């Protein structure tokens, strides 16, 4: 296993695309944060401030929303995770596109080790990437909040970062598994964006239409189980409530909306199934 880890680590860091994507992720994160923080700064109303001080849920919302480019809000999505997942797609895609897989397996013939090491190293890379993106974004947001006394709990910040790490790693592993299964990085790349932003949107639209015509909400309500919709719930701790954004409280695991745990079970379950299918395919078919 250590041989595969050494191989994968060297493979990942000696590719220019890894670094371009890493800088891309950070640029997307920090850039969007700057815009988000600016919007927050301009729209923080004086009546929300108590003696120039912002605290409580509102402070938490502004800080975490700026840090995560509003992905804590249902139903926003976390673009950083999708850009980071491209690192994973290329991790497998290059193996097949450039015929590297045979060179890889003649250096490390234990397929389970190659497979595991790739998921582990890319997962760790994405973890470091998301943590760095969040911390840099927090720093940038802090610059925009100069002059406002914002109080927030470090534990909440850490929890939010961990939720985003978990979601990003799951999206990356899902993308990697798709690449292994189809052995075509362009297809996997298209699917990574088309699935949540096209296919799930269409399915949801049709479900709402059917519910509307049939006067039966069961179809629309079932849409909370769509994989990326459910996955987003891992991060989305705020939702629209009473004409403003407020934190979710007392959600049940598979209620509407799903709790973070419910979202993790649905999305994580799908990712686990895809990883198992990819592992079986990689272990048994010709290189």
């Amino acid at each position, binding site marked *: 296993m250590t*041989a595969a880890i050494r*191989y994968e680590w*060297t493979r990942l860091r000696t590719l220019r695309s890894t670094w371009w994507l890493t800088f891309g992720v950070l640029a997307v994160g920090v850039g969007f944060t700057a815009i988000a923080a600016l919007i927050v700064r301009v729209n923080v109303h004086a009546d929300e401030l108590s003696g120039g001080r912002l605290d409580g849920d509102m402070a938490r919302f502004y800080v975490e929303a700026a840090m995560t480019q509003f992905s804590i809000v249902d139903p926003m999505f976390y673009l950083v995770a999708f850009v980071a997942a491209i690192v994973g797609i290329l991790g497998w895609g290059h193996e097949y596109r*450039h015929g*590297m897989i*045979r060179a890889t397996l*003649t*250096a*490390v013939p234990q397929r389970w080790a190659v497979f595991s090491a790739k998921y582990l190293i890319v997962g760790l890379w994405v973890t470091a990437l998301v943590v760095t993106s969040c911390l840099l974004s927090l720093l940038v947001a802090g610059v925009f909040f100069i002059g406002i006394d914002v109080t927030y709990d470090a534990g909440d910040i850490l929890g939010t970062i961990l939720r985003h790490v978990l979601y990003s790693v799951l999206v990356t592993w899902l993308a990697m598994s798709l690449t292994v299964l189809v052995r075509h990085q362009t297809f996997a790349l298209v699917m990574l964006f088309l699935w949540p932003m096209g296919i799930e949107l269409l399915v949801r639209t049709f479900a709402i239409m059917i519910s509307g015509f049939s006067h039966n909400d069961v179809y629309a309500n079932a849409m909370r189980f769509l994989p990326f919709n459910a996955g987003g719930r891992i991060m989305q701790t705020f939702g629209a409530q009473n004409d403003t954004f407020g934190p979710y409280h007392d959600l049940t695991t598979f209620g509407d909306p799903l709790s973070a745990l419910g979202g993790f079970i649905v999305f994580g379950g799908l990712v686990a199934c895809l990883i198992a299918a990819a592992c079986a395919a990689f272990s048994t078919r010709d*290189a």
Partner: protein
Amino acid sequence: MIEARDLAKSYAGKAAVSGLSFDVRPGTVTGFLGPNGAGKSTTMRLMLGLDTGAGTCTFDGKPFTAYAEPMREVGALLEAKPFHPTRTARNHLLMLATSNRIPAQRVDEVLGLVGLADVAGKKPSTFSLGMGQRLGLAAALLGNPHTLILDEPANGLDPQGIHWLRELLKALANEGRSVFVSSHLLSEMALMADELVVIGKGRMIANGPVEDFTKLSVRNHVLVRTPQAGELASLIGAKLAGVGSVQRTGDSELTVTGLEANAVGDLAFDNRIRVHELSTHNATLEEAFLEITGNAAEYTAHAPAAAPTTPQEGAR
């Protein structure tokens, strides 16, 4: 020592490789020959566990996949350009080396050995096919392995490169290594290989020393020039007794198969027949290969039909 036993592989019910068994002994270059589509590359992938199929292949007693650091035992070149186009040549080798705990210093050694030291920091996307092959060879040699499996390593090499490769592989074999190499360059193989494994349509056709293979050809013959061709032909025909043949290929020329030149000479001498020329023609590896694999070619081309005569040409 490579021991391949009963290797078999089929695609959609069609056998690509069927029951291949052979050995590659240390200290020899074993050539792997076969027409296009004969199953050579599939066999090599089966040997390394890259393809799923039947049979076993061991390298010094262990299957390839049982080695923790296989590049130190078996060096393989299977693809024409098996690298990422933007990862530098040095980094490509470094990536392979780190997995097998091969010192980075060895990377520079093999780059020098294959003549790529000057482009070690360049992206392989700018490499020619020949340079790509050299990088692939460098990867195969990285772990200083006892065994080499090389699929068409001469592809894309210039004449100097081919000469270098031949000398390199012979030198490696002389050091006691087992070298298993496929190639379509039969003249090169004739100069390089000690043993041959010849397959056609996935089945074994011949396996053994190169000399034994060429002896199988009917193109091996003795040429005799004599003013008494008819008389000598009758004597040879009687001596052959149906094994071999004698043909008049000119007024005073005979082509004989089935008899050695010295036997023909003795026969002429004993019967006071004057001989002006007595020579042996040995079939080349190419002649033997084309003759023996003639019916085993998966894909064959046909001679183009004669070009139709244009009206203008016809009018002239």
